[in-house]
């Protein structure tokens, strides 16, 4: 049984997060350097805007906000799973090489598989998923040891190695491509949220709608796995199967997010950690909090990056790294 007081606390935190996200979204709508004034936002949202106002809000800013939120949520969920699986707070899809696997596949797909422009974006998450899955499997295999099972810390380290090598592979790909395509890939690498209209929302939404509930449903498995292999076996769990299932879910979440937003690390690291420190380590409690925190963090990073360094803007991925890396270092030193 979970203490009712804690459940109440969780509800309160979730409510606060919802409000924070709402406020941040409004801020994002308002402070972007455009001609819209604050007073107009509410009427426009209720359908009383002019054509131009509607266009700016509904076709440009709103889809971007939604994509950012969804991607942040997916990354946070992926990070939570990876942290439970590896029993290590330092796991993050960006750090352990899943992102670069996805990135490599996206670049490959973009350069060598000409698909119709309209359908392209729907294939993108799939390509990213394939690349990320292959990378994850390789990392898993290399960190698996017959005698000791698989060692979490080695998994992270091997991930760092893969991520470095794959960035190299990416450079090879880029160097043989033509200039306009290179532009796209380097924007992608920087984590510039580039897919910003409703079709991208549609491309990523099915993944999120299927996978996020699945993660929440798996909360108990995650709890048990986090306790250790002996406990899990004792409770009759097929560890290997469950680990692989969860790994696939995490990879799919991270890849779908990253395919639309570009290489973004550290969200999957920070969000679960913040959530755990707010409400404790039980997955049922912290997962929803982590997911919302992830969405909010990425939205915040994008809002700051887009507006403070206007007009070019700083890619959200860069903003997140600038905030996230010191956080990571802090985590290593206190761990």
């Amino acid at each position, binding site marked *: 049984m979970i203490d009712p007081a804690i459940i109440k606390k969780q509800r309160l935190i979730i409510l606060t997060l919802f409000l924070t996200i709402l406020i941040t979204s409004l801020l994002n709508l308002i402070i972007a350097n455009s001609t819209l004034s604050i007073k107009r936002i509410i009427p426009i949202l209720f359908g009383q805007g002019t054509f131009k106002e509607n266009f700016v809000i509904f076709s440009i800013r709103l889809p971007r906000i939604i994509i950012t939120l969804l991607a942040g949520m997916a990354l946070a969920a992926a990070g939570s799973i990876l942290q439970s699986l590896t029993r290590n707070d330092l796991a993050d899809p960006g750090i352990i090489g899943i992102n670069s696997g996805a990135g490599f596949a996206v670049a490959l797909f973009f350069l060598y598989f000409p698909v119709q422009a309209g359908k392209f974006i729907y294939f993108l998450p799939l390509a990213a998923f394939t690349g990320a899955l292959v990378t994850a499997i390789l990392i898993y295999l290399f960190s698996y040891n017959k005698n000791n099972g698989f060692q979490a810390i*080695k998994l992270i380290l091997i991930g760092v190695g893969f991520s*470095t*090598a794959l960035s190299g*592979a990416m*450079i090879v790909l880029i160097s043989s491509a033509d200039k306009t395509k290179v532009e796209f890939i380097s924007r992608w690498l920087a984590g510039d949220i580039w897919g910003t209209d409703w079709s991208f929302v549609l491309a990523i939404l099915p993944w999120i709608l299927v996978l996020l509930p699945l993660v929440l449903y798996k909360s108990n498995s995650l709890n048990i796995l986090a306790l250790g292999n002996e406990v899990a076996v004792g409770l009759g769990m097929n560890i290997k199967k469950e680990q692989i299932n969860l790994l696939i879910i995490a990879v799919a979440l991270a890849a779908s997010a990253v395919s639309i937003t570009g290489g973004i690390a550290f969200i999957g690291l920070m969000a679960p950690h913040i959530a755990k420190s707010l409400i404790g380590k039980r997955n049922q409690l912290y997962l929803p909090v982590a997911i919302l925190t992830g969405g909010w963090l990425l939205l915040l990073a994008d809002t700051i990056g887009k507006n403070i360094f206007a007009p070019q803007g700083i890619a959200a991925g860069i903003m997140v*790294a600038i905030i996230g890396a010191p956080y990571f270092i802090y985590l*290593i*030193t206190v761990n």
Partner: protein
Amino acid sequence: MQKNNKRISFSYLLIIALLFLLISFFLAVRFGAAEVSFKQTWQALSFSGNIEEIIILQEIRIPRAIAAIFVGAALAAAGAIMQGMTRNPLADPGLFGLTAGANLFLAITLAIFPAIDYLGTILASFIGAAIGAGLVFGIAAFNQKGFSPLKIVLAGSAVSTFLYAVTRAISIYFKISKNVTMWTAGGLVGVGWSQLKLIIPIIIFGLAGAFLLARQLTILSLKEEIAIGLGQKVFRTKIMLFLIIIILTGAAVAVVGNIVFLGLMIPHLVRTFAGRDYRFVMPLSALTGSIFMLLADLLSRTLNAPYETPVVAIIALLGLPFFLIIVNRRRRYF
């Protein structure tokens, strides 16, 4: 020092390495986008004859090959020092934040002084490498319980990510992405005699320091207590070694950009043949680093000729298997 009969004696290894170096150098000059004959290669190397092909060799390929020799030697020696000093088998200038730091300061310099000369960029690399290394080692030192080798690598990875992110932000903001990328991923493209005149003395200075301190490094690599027990001034030695690492890496990065894994794998390779005494490991690492860099650069020029495949990327790819082997072999470190 214990004699180990299994290991081939040092002088043999040295001769073999020198031979390989000569062959690689010749190959690097002989092959490339423009076809030349063996005779012309020889003429170019002996500076006799002055037809167009020979000029190409003398002005483009030979300086580039020489640069490869020095850069490879510098990075391998820096890696060897770092591994000995930190007793961390995974130490590498690229993984420990030095290259990322150098990168950031190159970007800053290019943003503030767009017309900076070569010497300025080298200085910027030095400062950046020192700051990157300082951050990583500082974080490691901050933790009182001591850091496992693995955690330093993670800290290095985080610091690098951070520094690269700032670099990207600066390059986008000041619209110097292209220049910065030319530096960081450019490899040895366009290295000429004028740059060599600056770089070679610096690297020779660094290498000489590395060779001179090799004995102390061996003792340090065993155990700090032993070093103190043997009357070494550990702190002073460490500072000197640190400076040498900065000099070697800074100079190498200024020439070639972000190379990872080279400083990691070469000393490992050498140690499997030559043992753990750095008086032997150091010169052999430098030589092997040179050979490796020459061949990697040759590959980068010929793989997709006449276009260049960045050598930075080739080495990153070649390095991964090594990295995996080392991580898997050294289980006791985790």
